């Protein structure tokens, strides 16, 4: 379902620097923070319907997603709501599993519809004192694309006049036979492509030569 994210570009958004929450006097208390807030602001005046949020984890244990939504047209102020609470990214906050993995949060996983979103707030939690820091990297927000309606051919296209045909074909082969044989070749290559095997041939040399002096260190 989310397989077409390569075609869809992520929305240009401003990701504010992560803000780590501290209790009490930050100067005297050297304890690591366990909560971090990352604000992602979407372009002003252009609310987005979110399809998916993707990111790469860096030692965050849980993430909560809050959305600031503004209903279109109405005068009501924008409201914050929680789309997802405490999604576990690491099954054990003290150990490595999941700590550097790539994740996607799809709109269907969210508890509210992520439509007309003005701003996204990611609340990261890492309760373990094992890590020096934690964050999310490469946060991308993909917009929800409505499927394209059937396009009609514009009128001006059909007004184009066809260029005069029947050029001089002396000495050249008949275009119909050429095109049909090309079509046959194309069909053959399609068949060959679909029947391609992943089995290798097994040769390790290059044209019979395998004289090696030094291994490459790069």
């Amino acid at each position, binding site marked *: 379902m989310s397989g077409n994210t390569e075609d869809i570009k992520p929305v240009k958004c401003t990701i504010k620097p992560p803000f780590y929450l501290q209790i009490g006097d930050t100067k005297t208390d050297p304890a690591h923070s366990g909560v971090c807030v990352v604000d992602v602001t979407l372009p002003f005046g252009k609310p987005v319907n979110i399809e998916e949020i*993707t990111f790469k984890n860096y030692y965050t244990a849980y993430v909560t997603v809050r959305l600031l939504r503004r209903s279109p047209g109405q005068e009501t102020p924008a409201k914050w709501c929680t789309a997802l609470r405490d999604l576990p990214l690491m099954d054990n906050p003290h150990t490595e599993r999941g700590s550097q993995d790539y994740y996607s949060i799809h709109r269907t996983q969210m508890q509210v519809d992520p439509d007309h979103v003005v701003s996204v707030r990611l609340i990261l939690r890492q309760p373990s004192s094992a890590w020096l820091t934690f964050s999310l990297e490469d946060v991308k927000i993909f917009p929800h694309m409505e499927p394209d309606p059937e396009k009609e051919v514009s009128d001006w296209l059909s007004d184009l006049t066809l260029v005069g045909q029947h050029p001089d074909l002396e000495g050249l082969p008949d275009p119909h036979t050429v095109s049909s044989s090309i079509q046959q070749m194309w069909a053959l290559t399609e068949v060959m492509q679909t029947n391609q095997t992943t089995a290798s041939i097994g040769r390790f040399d*290059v044209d019979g*030569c395998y004289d090696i002096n030094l291994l490459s260190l790069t």
Partner: protein
Amino acid sequence: MLLAYKTSNCAVPDAELNAKLTGRMDEGTELSLTIAQIVQRLKGSHLHSQIERQAKECLHQPEIKLESLKEDVRSFLKTSGWERKLQNAVYRELHVQLPPSHPAAPPEHLKEPLAYMRKAQASWEKRVLKSLNSMSTELEVPLARMRPAVEQKELTNKWNEMGTDEPDLSRFRPVYAPKDFLEVLISLRNPNHDSSEDVSVRSHWGLIQVPLNVRDIPQLRRAYSELNLTTGQLGIDDHAHIHPDLFENEYVQIGKKVVVEQDSAAAQQYSRQGCPTGLRADLWALILNSTNQPQDVMHYEQLTAGVIQHDLLVDNLIYKDVKLTASNDDYYFVFEDFLYQVLLCFSRDTAVLDHFKYNSATPPKSYIQGKVGEEECAVVYPPNGVIPFHGFSMYVAPLCFLYNEPSKLYSVFREMYIRYFFRLHSISSSPSGIVSLCLQFERLLQTHLPQLFYHLRQIGAQPLRIAFKWMVRAFSGYLSTDQLLLLWDRILGYDSLEVVAVLAAAVFAFRAENLMEVTSLASAEAVLADLSTLKVMPLIQIFLFATAI
């Protein structure tokens, strides 16, 4: 024609967790992707063409009716055993397939998700390559060269008795030994890990300082439930003084049925309680889907030709390793010739390169004729990308007890290497990887034998320094062969090397009393020097199921 095969029998407890964590809500999509990948891999394989041919030929048979063509052909393939072969092939692909991953994850992330481990593996590899390069330069032996015709003929003639050769190997030394690798693992650090606290609740007394997920005894009890005290085991309940009717006879009958059915998944499940000696060769071949068809024999012959044609520097390392380890071992010296025949061919097998997509290691690269940088002249060295180290031949030696046909022996070894053994000498966060095994061993010891661990630490005898060499070889060469094979039964049965770490801890538990008396590393080594009398299954069973929690 492809039959979707559920992964329920694979010991992959993390697949579901992974799916949940990555937020993949669509299991159907994931399954389709897996099926598509497997179809792609099996397409064009020999099995594919065999099944096609069978399907075409069966059309001559009278019971195949035109109206129900599809169902009739399918049931023909089922009764003639071809569907089972396809199932086994699919099952094998599931073992060596990458787990489903996020589309944004680059290939290096699939090999190893943690950046600092990738870096450590890369710098270790660089060290090894530098060492190999200097060996080649100092000894003035090229890394690879074409053998002259006379030499090729000579080698062909003595192919079956390479052990009688006494080449001058004194100048060659192994590229690295397990203890060098251990030092690298000990120095592994996560740059984001807070190790500022000297003494804390979490303090780990051992040498491995990376916080990987390893299972504790309660979790191991659930995962290895077939090893519990009330389930019959080979290695325990086939003991001479236990009447065979109580367990052994019936168990062997079941084993025979499994072999007749030719079902890989059933064989793997069966192997968890051990394989009877007479059936083990067939069962392991089934689990690994190692057939010995004409095309496999041909492939092996092709590799042999590769050995005859080109001489590689690593060949000398293999010779040296065999001479130093297997040839000196009472159990394995008779198999010396087999070992050369398998290992030299293994080095030439480019099919092994496939496994690097899930191995954190990268095959070494070079250019022929010094044409550095020209991609058309780029080759992998050795052709299989694996540089042998001291003790490597011990991965093959125990298999010689099971298979006496070189191409079959080769096929089984190669599959075992690309499923399990490669994890024992590369740096990765995999639960079966050597780093996890070392950490698990230390954790089990610290949790359940804290007095012993503390004592050994105080006298400068860190337990891992003794146990590492056992684990790197999966105990090959340290246990008596029948016991080793019982251990490897469980590695295959559970599709995991974890049981190696459990056994290492169990051995320390067994010899705890003696170890508490020693006062130096050397005497601790002496207590644990001889494991040849140990019975592995009782040790594992008691450690897992009789330890007080």
